[in-house]
Each structure stands twice: as structure tokens, then as C-alpha cells.
């Protein structure tokens, strides 16, 4: 396949940045999107040009590192798919593809497609610890947790922290991320102890780190590569109200 790529090039957070058109003349439909970019970079390197900086790590859809807005949608718009799991067979010969970084005040661009997602880490840090008893290892079944609760918590824990929710949100809100992190612990006996402090601290950290407010567009769920549900934002809101009144 022959593709025309419009890739965002930016030297740093203070650089203005612009789209640069780069041809990809020999793309295999079996390649992943990142492999295609590897080839593009290889060609750029041979020509002595500056390669396109992009984030990646596991390349199997579980680490949350790859973070590109492809044709206006974080991760490219294929349902529940990260960029690394997006394959070139989804595109047609002659396609023009726009590749841009996450854009949000909370995610300053480091270079090209790489952004600083430290804001999400700050929210996690604000979440703090969960209390546990010290001493010997607890019996496996000493703390029974019902299957529906365990499933609910695991669904929330599917979040890989990629930041697509922020990138897709018209308000750059991190409420789906925060909701998932709050909800996964709030329903478990281990997490209930600090639940009230946690929800207050995490929502405050989201605000302090420059994320916007949720106004219920639900773009976050639509673009989440793990399909994390906005019901976890409702759960966060319930937990917040509980913390307010007690």
C-alpha cells in the first residue's frame, strides 16, 4: 500500500508544532500501525532526517504507552484497540492518515507524538495506599469477595492509563481514568477503608494537574481501548457524595 501521512512534528512543549507530510510508499497490510511508523522512521534515518518520536512499549495492547490521535480519534477509532494493535489492513491504498499527539493542557508535548502523561500518575499518587494487616500471609479465602463485585472491580481495573479518555474529551477531563481507579478499590473490602479520603484526593489531584471537568459527553468510553464504562464515573460521583456527607 502507498499512504500519505500527515504527522505532527513538534520539538518541545514551547514549540508551535505543525503537520508534516511524509509518504509511506511500501506499507504491508499485515503490519501494525507502529511497525508502519518504524519503517517510516527507518527511511527518515537513512535520509539523515529527524525521526518521528512516538511512545510505545509492550506492543500487545496492555501497557498504555502508545498514544496517537489517528484521523481525529485516539487510537484510531477501532473499537477496544490500542494503536499498536491497529493493523494497516484497516486502511486502503492511497489513504491519507493524520497522526497527532494527545492534546490537553495536562499533557504537554515532549516531542512530536510523545506527551508527558505525568498528570495521570499524580492522580494515582493522590489515591495513596490501601490498609492491610501485617503479619503472616492471609488465608486465600479468609476475605470472601462475591463474583459480581470482583468482576466489577476487574472491569474498572482494565484501565491501562493510556490517556485516550482525556484526549477524546472535549473538556480534557480525566474523570473516566479517575473514576475507574476510584471504583476498582471502592467496592473491595481492602479499598473501602480509605475510600472517602481517596475519592476526595484523586478528584482534587485531577483538577490541580490541569484536567477539565466532566460534562458527560461519554467520548471517553467510546475511545477507550479497554472499553472502560462511564458507569465508573457515576460510581465516583456516588463515592464523592458519600464522602461529602459523612
Amino acid at each position, binding site marked *: 500500500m502507498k499512504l500519505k501521512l*500527515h504527522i*505532527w512534528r513538534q520539538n518541545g512543549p514551547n514549540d508551535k508544532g505543525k*503537520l508534516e507530510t511524509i509518504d509511506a510508499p511500501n506499507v504491508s497490510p499485515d503490519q501494525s500501525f507502529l511497525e508502519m511508523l518504524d519503517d517510516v522512521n527507518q527511511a527518515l534515518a537513512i535520509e539523515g532526517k529527524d525521526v518521528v518520536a512516538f511512545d510505545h512499549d509492550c506492543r500487545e495492547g496492555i501497557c498504555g504507552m502508545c498514544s496517537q*490521535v489517528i*484521523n*481525529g*480519534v485516539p487510537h484510531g*477509532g477501532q473499537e477496544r484497540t490500542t494503536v499498536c494493535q491497529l493493523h494497516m489492513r484497516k486502511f486502503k491504498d492511497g489513504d491519507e492518515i*493524520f497522526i*497527532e499527539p494527545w*492534546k*490537553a*493542557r*495536562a499533557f504537554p508535548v515532549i516531542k512530536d507524538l510523545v506527551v508527558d502523561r505525568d498528570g495521570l500518575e499524580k492522580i494515582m499518587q493522590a489515591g495513596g495506599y490501601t490498609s492491610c494487616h501485617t503479619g503472616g500471609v492471609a488465608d486465600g479465602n479468609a476475605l470472601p469477595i462475591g463474583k459480581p463485585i470482583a468482576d466489577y472491580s476487574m472491569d474498572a481495573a482494565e484501565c491501562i492509563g493510556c490517556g485516550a479518555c482525556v484526549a*477524546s474529551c*472535549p*473538556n*480534557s*477531563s480525566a*474523570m473516566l481514568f479517575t473514576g475507574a481507579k476510584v471504583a476498582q478499590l471502592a467496592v473491595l473490602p481492602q479499598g473501602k477503608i480509605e475510600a472517602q479520603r481517596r475519592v*476526595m484526593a484523586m*478528584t*482534587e489531584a*485531577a*483538577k490541580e494537574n*490541569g*484536567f*477539565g*471537568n*466532566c*460534562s*458527560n*459527553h*461519554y*467520548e471517553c*468510553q*467510546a*475511545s477507550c481501548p479497554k472499553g472502560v*464504562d*462511564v*458507569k465508573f*464515573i*457515576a*460510581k*465516583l*460521583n*456516588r463515592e*464523592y*457524595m458519600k464522602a*461529602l456527607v459523612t
Partner: protein
Amino acid sequence: MQLTQSSVGRKIIMAVTGIVLVSFVCVHLLGNSSIFVGADAINAYAQKLHSLGPFVWVFRLVMLAAFAIHIVFGIQLTLENKAATPESNMQVKRLKTGFGAETMIVSGGVIFFFVVYHLLHFTVRVTNPEIYVPLGDQGMVNVYFMMVNGFKGALPVIAYVAGLIFLFLHVGHGIQSLFQTLGLSNDKSLPVMGMFSQLVGFVLLVGYVSIPLLIVAGLIKI
């Protein structure tokens, strides 16, 4: 402090004041719909409201407070949201949200100006003083006469239809949004809330707009 400064706290305030405002809009439509029964019905309804005396003023103050709080926090949250997204991508494709949800601040602004006009038109009686004629000797106004003559010109009809289209857009997103904000939704109920929200908005639009349109059509007349 948490309630008035935090992200979720202010959204809760938006939701609660939203409930007050949309409930009023629904009750107001029910009251207005007595015009379909006839002149005596809507005049009797107006008389009943006036007989409440000081309670009317308590009610008006509560409404004014809800309206003001909803506007102030709405503007504040929107400005913060704009600041959180200083620059958009060159290509933006939305997958889920709609026109109504993305234009809440615009529809809210239009509704504000519409409400001001509506109050000047029918409550403070500034824009069209000629439509007021007394009813009886209790200081009452003939509300039926006021409404029918109030929609004689093209300007009020256009203003009301436009204002109510924006109300439809605002309520269509707002109702499901308040359920989500107050934590009253889950994955099963949220799509139903979305449809309910649109339905309420549509009923309000049709209900309210039908009055000036039926007057223009000559079906409601003196």
C-alpha cells in the same frame, strides 16, 4: 468549600439547580396548557397563583437563586474546560457526543436572554404594555387576552420558537447528564436516560411552541 470549589462538587450543584429549573419548566407547561381548555381555565389558574400571595415571592426567589447559581457555575466550569484544552487536534472526530451536549454553554446563553425577554414580555410587562387588560376589580390581568395578543406579531413568535429549540437542546443533554452526575445511572440505565432526556426536551418543545403557533394559526383566539 468542597462543594463549591471541587470539580465534582460544582457539577452536583449544576445537577441540583438543573432539577429545580427543569421541574419548573415542566410545571409551567402544565399550567400554560390550561389555555387549551379555554379563557376561563387559564384565568382561573392565574388567579390561583396570585392568591398564594407571599409564597409566590418565596418561589420566585428560589427560582432566581437556582437560575443564577446554575449560570455562574456553568460559565465557570466551561471556562475551566476551555482552559484545559488550549489547542485542539487538526482533525477531530467525535464518536459519541452530540450537538446539544457540545453547545450547552451556547444554548444556556440563548435561554438566559430568552428568559429575560419572556419576563419583560409577560411578567414585568415592558415590551408590549398594550396586551394587558384588567379582569375583575381584584387587580388581576386577563391572562388569556394577554397571551393571544402577545403573539400577534412575528417577533415574539420567532423569539419563543427559537428560545424553545435551544431549551430542547439544553434539556436533551441536561437531564441524562444530571442522573449521571448524581450517580443515579449505570450501564443499563444510561441509554434509557438519554432517550428519556430527549423525550422530555421534545415534549417541552412541542408543548410550549404549540401555544404561539396555534394562536398564529387562529385556532386559539379571542
